[in-house]
């Protein structure tokens, strides 16, 4: 069995294990993931808001072509 096959089998086993959890355990996992994703989104929004707006390369090219 190749390393890739072993890796895929381990992953499949892990996923099956998660499917066997109780419904409330799965919901708690989803809740934790949701919070992490929300934090990442908030951080990304903050970064975007604080970064100065730059025109895209496409817009710059169009402007240069007009000259």
């Amino acid at each position, binding site marked *: 069995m190749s390393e890739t096959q072993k890796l895929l089998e381990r992953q499949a086993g892990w996923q*099956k294990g998660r*499917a066997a*959890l109780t419904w409330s355990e*799965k919901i708690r996992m989803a809740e934790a993931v949701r919070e992490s994703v929300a934090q990442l989104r908030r951080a990304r929004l903050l970064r975007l808001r604080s970064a100065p707006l730059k025109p895209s390369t496409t817009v710059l090219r169009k402007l240069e072509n007009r000259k």
Partner: protein
Amino acid sequence: MKEVAELLNAMCSAGVIREYALFGAIAQMRYTEPVATPDTEVLVAVPDPQRLDLLKPSYEYCAARGYQPEDETVRIGAWPVQFVPFFNPLAEEALERAEIDNFEGVAFRVVRADHLAAIALSSGRAKDYARILGLLESGSVTREQIARLAARHGLADAWTRFQARFLNE
């Protein structure tokens, strides 16, 4: 989520909604592995389906108990909850035939796996197709059960296309 179950049961007892059933990703997780989802979707039947502002009494009931609206959802504990009045005969059937699960000691109505699959088939987005495959793989629903529901609800062609695309080995 227990808080959501308790509130929905209380809304039923108070007559604010006639019936409810959890659907979407949270209901899916009852049968499959956990999936990431931003909110909780709840199918609801209201006592007066003719009124224009169908969900106003629900929002008012929630607000009076400190659960505030957040975009198109209501924040209940950790979860934004979206109330969705049933939107077609399939969703109505899913709501009527939902099962009652015991969620940490609280009764919680959940849409059955076959109806979840059929609703996903009718939505037809990539993530919905992934949901159907997940439900089939979990053994919570069979191809025959989906085919029967699809035939009854005008989704036979969609089911044929789905099978040709994803299930023909």
